[in-house]
């Protein structure tokens, strides 16, 4: 096979794969703009009314705010637990390091739907905590493995003698952490935040059972809306969410080379 033939074969395989992976997004963007009362593709006429309607649906607004709050505060809480854990696993010779690592990684391995059900049955029902609090804790636990992993990997290249030098020069251990370690792992922490935010925001199975009257995350709300309405507004909302994720990832990539950390 000569080079130009191989080139062509290469790009046709990639073209087909990328069409399969990305094509559906182009389709929902257009489907959301169809001037019909039902979902249609190719779109018949072009309108922005479905894109605007998304903002007027009361339940979407409430569930969007809940999902946002869960993603932001859940990820922050996960970092608060995860950064010290990642630091300890890297810097200390812990007796049970492997056990701690496995326990913290467990939420990735266990299917989310089981976790949601277990929390509902054995935490919400017996203790009477609110569904919102349970959601917050579930999302924190879900993001924790990512926080520990990403922060850990950004810490492995940081040599411990820099901190020791800082301590010798008169810093307390805490100061050594905030002045030497933290600035050096800033990129990793930010990357962990973004990864955690996106994971939490898009999460469905964990939240499936953890919903109550007026308390629903956005993806669950979209599922419910889909079952009763067939207008293109869910396509429009899906397209808007895709744009939001893309904007976050692009900004992160530009600012800190996000993909290095993931």
């Amino acid at each position, binding site marked *: 096979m000569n080079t130009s033939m191989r080139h062509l074969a290469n790009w046709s395989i*990639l073209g087909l794969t*990328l069409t399969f992976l990305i094509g559906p997004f182009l389709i929902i963007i257009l489907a959301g703009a169809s001037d019909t009362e039902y979902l249609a593709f190719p779109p018949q006429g072009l309108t922005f009314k479905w894109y605007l309607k998304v903002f007027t649906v009361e339940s979407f607004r409430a569930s969007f705010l809940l999902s946002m709050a869960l993603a932001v505060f859940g990820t922050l809480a996960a970092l608060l637990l995860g950064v010290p854990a990642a630091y300890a696993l890297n810097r200390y010779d812990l007796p049970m390091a492997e056990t701690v690592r496995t326990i913290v990684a467990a939420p990735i391995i266990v299917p989310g739907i089981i976790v949601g059900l277990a929390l509902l*049955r054995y935490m919400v029902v017996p203790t009477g905590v609110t569904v919102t609090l349970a959601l917050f804790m579930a999302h924190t636990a879900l993001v924790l493995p990512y926080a520990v992993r990403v922060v850990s990997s950004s810490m492995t290249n940081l040599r411990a003698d820099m901190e020791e030098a800082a301590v010798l020069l008169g810093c307390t251990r805490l100061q050594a952490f905030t002045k030497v370690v933290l600035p050096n792992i800033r990129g990793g922490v930010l990357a962990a935040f973004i990864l955690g935010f996106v994971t939490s925001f898009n999460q469905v199975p964990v939240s499936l059972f953890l919903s109550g009257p007026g308390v629903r995350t956005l993806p669950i709300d979209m*599922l419910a809306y889909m079952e009763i309405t067939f207008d293109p507004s869910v396509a429009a909302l899906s397209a808007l*969410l895709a744009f939001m994720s893309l904007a976050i990832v692009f900004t992160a990539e530009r600012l800190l080379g996000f*993909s290095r950390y993931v």
Partner: protein
Amino acid sequence: MFRNTREGLALALPAAIFSTLLFLVPVGILLSEAFRGTTGGWSLQGYIDFFSTPLNRTVFLRTLKLGVLVAGTAAVIGYAAAFCIVNLGPKSRGKVFGMVVLPLMISPVARTYAWIVILGRTGIVNEAITGLGLSDTPLRLLFTETAVFLGLLQLFLPLMIISLVSAMENIPRDVIPAARVLGASWFAVFFKVILPLTKEGLVIGGTLVFTGALTAYITPAILGGSKVLMLETLLYQRVNVSNDFVSASVIAMILIVMSFSANLLLKRIATARS
């Protein structure tokens, strides 16, 4: 390394305790529920009852079948795509790789919803079929195993490609041309050179895709509905419709056992080959 173990534990334990209380304990109780006999004591009755219902057996086998099919197809496409990606110049390689990763950042609800637009009654495929006169009435393409298969493949293919690309990047540059010069066919190059050198990537990718397909909820819920139940959607139904927590606990255990055995089996295969 710092020697002060107490200090280290004080930093690491909050995360571990949090995960234990919120994950291991509730999930452990849930899993034990199926083993609890009606008269107290332990029993396997929950499992026997579950598998003696034909519907449950169908759903179990379907989930296994779709998981294997999706992982297998993803591996075939993944090898082709990964091979092409590592052969690109450094600049377009980064761009194409980015386009493969991007879908992972987008809500699975949005990603699955696109298939409704494609396969629905007024979707692009049915418009084409009726437009070309191949059928007078729109075909039922949604709520079929094919729809669920396509949705799952689109959802998890990136994970396979990523795993295989990073495995292939570690193949020394000259190995494949050397095998070719020495007379190996492309078939032999793949099975004797590429596959053995990338098997770790295949194991990771295969586990991620298979486990992902088993435990996906949205795709079978939207594209399969109650016509094409999978274990996840069956679990949801059992809890929400019939309040049957024993079945839910059995399904939970099956899902976890399947995920772990897939990982072990793939690892075994990988080490046996070498």
